[in-house]
């Protein structure tokens, strides 16, 4: 199979509708016949990443590379950057605002959940410039 590359703009303006890109990737993977387990891991990891981009960075770009061996998700934003990545990787640590918490997010589980469901997670971040997550999920 030739690698497939999908690109999305993640809209940062409407939190309640976040997840459009993840939903589209999920449908594509289903059509391509990937296993339910891989599809679930991709959907969860990408959705958490999308939610983070909407909460913290007013959206961003998502690039998804699909190949026989797995799925690589690259989420790039131009938000404030992450001050302390080690702290952000800890369950329960969150800098999300109250209105997001009221909707059931911001419990400090985003990055830990992404790590849990992926085979590899790379976080590149620079304060005032933005954050890029590279998430690898193998078949």
């Amino acid at each position, binding site marked *: 199979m030739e690698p497939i590359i999908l690109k999305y703009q993640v809209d940062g303006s409407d939190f309640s509708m976040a997840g459009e890109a993840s939903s589209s990737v*999920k449908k594509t993977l289903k059509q391509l016949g990937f296993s339910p387990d891989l599809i679930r891991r991709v959907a*969860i990891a990408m959705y958490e990443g999308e939610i983070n981009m909407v909460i913290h960075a007013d959206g961003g770009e998502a690039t998804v590379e699909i190949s026989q061996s797995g799925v690589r998700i690259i989420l790039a934003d131009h938000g404030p950057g992450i001050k302390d990545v080690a702290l952000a990787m800890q369950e329960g640590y969150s800098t999300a605002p109250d209105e997001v918490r009221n909707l*059931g997010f*911001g419990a400090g589980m985003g990055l830990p959940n992404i790590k849990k469901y992926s085979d590899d997670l790379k976080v590149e971040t620079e304060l005032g410039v933005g954050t890029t997550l590279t998430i690898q999920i193998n078949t």
Partner: protein
Amino acid sequence: MMNVHELAAACGFTYFNGKELEARPVEGAYCCDLLSWVIGRAGDQDALVTVMSNPNVIAVAVMADLPCVILTEGVRPDEKALEKARENDVIVLSSSEPTYATALKIGKVLAG
């Protein structure tokens, strides 16, 4: 194993969406209102039991591939949530009882 429609009938839950949808098996339930916990920890055969009724609840059910959402305390989904459930074929049920009582009922029914 029991499916969603059988569980709904046995527990007396009503439908907000999905009465006509194909029912998937239900093995247990995950009771939580914090969606990041749900998406990280609910199993793919767990019914999500919650009072949260916004569209993100439906998105989480889709991403985590959950068989259904059960809203407790008689909570109604908002219009955007309902629309998302219809678009994504998510079964949304209603329980008039609180989350704890709903979970006990589900546990009893699933234990046979």
